[in-house]
């Protein structure tokens, strides 16, 4: 393991510890933090696609798919360790089918086809009212963890723990993936897709692999969201929810696997505090924050943090 990888591992573990500490000190934030991590996991997938220069405006589809899969399965199978793979499988399978179609498209066409499919799913959730209860949504029963029934308090902690473990696992995986030829081929695609073909690398399959992975991660995020809110509604699949994921990716910065989580914490906390401060203008505050980040720190929170870290030694020297 390289020095840098070790450093990042330590940083990730420290971040996890901080999350647990904050959740312990400020009980109501535990929920917000769990949701943030869930979204961060989904955004990790968006990050993969962003590497290839593709923006999906429909990934909420996979979040919602898995969340609904969990909601439908939970009454018969209320086990977190089964619901997570189930959601990942459902999202991954649909991601594979949809992916085979959408990886033929680039840029706006890619983005809009994803959006269209997520909106179709959104309508399906409304149309099959008898099954889904439409916007009223479906409530999940209490979930067991490794076969153990937990009280609400313990279940909250368990979900947060699962979320953190998944985040660490997927974070490490994506980090490795991005440094592998498969990952490097993604960013190569962004700059010179034709060259890839002339190197014998099937660009579409490179993108497809990333797409399916992103669907799986969005699915895991969706199941965690479902287990945390214990109530799923079609709003999970609406296009603004997809936009939110892209928003988080940019807010956090696409330069590192830490970005999605920084972005998700930044987003959820800003939204929560903005909503608490001015209940009827929180959107505007979020918009202004996003605009500020894009204009003044296009590298996102991660880029901001990194340049601050880089500058610090010089600052200390001067002081």
């Amino acid at each position, binding site marked *: 393991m390289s020095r840098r990888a070790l450093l990042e591992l330590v940083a990730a573990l420290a971040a996890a510890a901080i999350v647990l500490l904050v959740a312990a000190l400020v009980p109501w934030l535990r929920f917000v933090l769990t949701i943030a991590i869930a979204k961060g996991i989904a955004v990790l997938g968006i990050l993969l696609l962003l590497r290839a220069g593709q923006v999906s*405006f429909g990934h909420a589809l996979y979040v919602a798919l898995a969340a609904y899969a969990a909601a439908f399965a939970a009454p018969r199978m209320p086990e977190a360790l089964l619901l997570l793979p189930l959601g990942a499988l459902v999202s991954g399978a649909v991601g594979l089918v949809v992916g085979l179609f959408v990886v033929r*498209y680039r840029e706006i*066409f890619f983005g809009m086809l994803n959006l*269209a499919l997520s909106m179709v799913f959104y309508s399906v959730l409304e149309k099959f009212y008898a099954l889904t209860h439409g916007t009223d949504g479906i409530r999940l029963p209490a979930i067991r963890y490794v076969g153990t029934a937990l009280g609400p308090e313990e279940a909250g902690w368990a979900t947060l723990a699962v979320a953190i473990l998944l985040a660490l696992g997927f974070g490490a995986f994506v980090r490795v993936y991005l440094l592998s030829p498969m990952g490097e081929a993604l960013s190569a695609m962004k700059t010179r897709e*034709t060259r890839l073909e002339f190197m014998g690398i099937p660009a579409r399959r490179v993108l497809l692999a990333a797409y399916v992975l992103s669907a799986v991660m969005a699915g895991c995020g969706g199941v965690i969201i479902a287990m945390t809110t214990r109530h799923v509604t079609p709003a999970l699949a609406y296009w603004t929810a997809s936009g939110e994921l892209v928003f988080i990716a940019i807010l956090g910065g696409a330069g590192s696997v830490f970005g999605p989580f920084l972005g998700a914490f930044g987003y959820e906390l800003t939204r929560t505090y903005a909503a608490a401060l001015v209940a009827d203008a*929180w959107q505007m505050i979020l*918009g*202004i924050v996003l*605009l500020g980040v894009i204009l003044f720190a*296009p590298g996102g929170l991660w880029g901001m943090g990194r340049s601050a870290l880089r500058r610090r030694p010089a600052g200390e020297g001067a002081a």
Partner: protein
Amino acid sequence: MPGWIADNALLIGLAVLDGLSYAAAVFMVAVGLNLIFGVLRVLNIAHGSLYAIGGYSAAALGLFVVSRGLPGWLVFPTLLAASVLVGLVLGPPIERLLRRTEKEEPVLQLLVTFALFMILEDLQKLLFGVQPVVFDAPLKMLGTVDIPFGQDVIPFTAYQLFVLPGIALVTLAGLAWFLRRTLYGRMIVAVTTDREAARAMGIDAAKVTLLTFTAGAALAALGGALASPTASLVPGVGAQTIVLSFAVVATAGLGQIEGAAVTSLLIGLGRSFAVYFEPELEVVVPYLIMVAVLLVRPQGLFGVPETRRI
């Protein structure tokens, strides 16, 4: 199939009329977005907000005109004036923001418009409140036209039957003329087709961008203004309008106004046929059309496949 058509001939006729007016409304929103997309290569999410603000402004100005007892016909120029005003006031600053991020990745520009969308969404609420706003003086002034339907007659509003499709046609023709016959128009087409080549030819891309964006913003506002006599303006109306326009742009092909017209027509007719014969499909019709078109023509209806020089 022919039997079915014969059985339903009258209904099909009505469905076409409904489809046309709906298509006109869709076209008015989508064409500005498509124009902007062609030149700036940015999908302007704030377009929906411009639509909403256009609608609100037109309603506000229109109500003012009516309340002052000014002549009734003035409401029509008012709709237009409100749109131009919105375009001029909001277009240039947004374009400036976009140009500031021109050098960055395209997704950042997209997110700029997303941020603006969020800001404008709340701004609109602060300015115009949350109660539904309608300004139906134009609708009432023009009255209805009875369309025969077997033994029966079906009243259509003249506004829906003539004004909306009429303005859409005039806009289409006017834009086509502008883009083909005028210097600025040709500059816009040149930048749409090949930005680098256009720059190399000495076209001032910044000027073209500003012009296009302002015009596109005004068109969005006009779309809203034209909708205001029949539709209720409520918070969130922009978010719902914009997804439909997205579908139109992707289906039409980059910056193609004729493409936007044909796509709007497809969506308009598709939707009204759905309402007549399979109502549950209504909501997904635009997306199904988009997926179907892109399956056959991956570059959109009127898009030119991009051949990369290597």
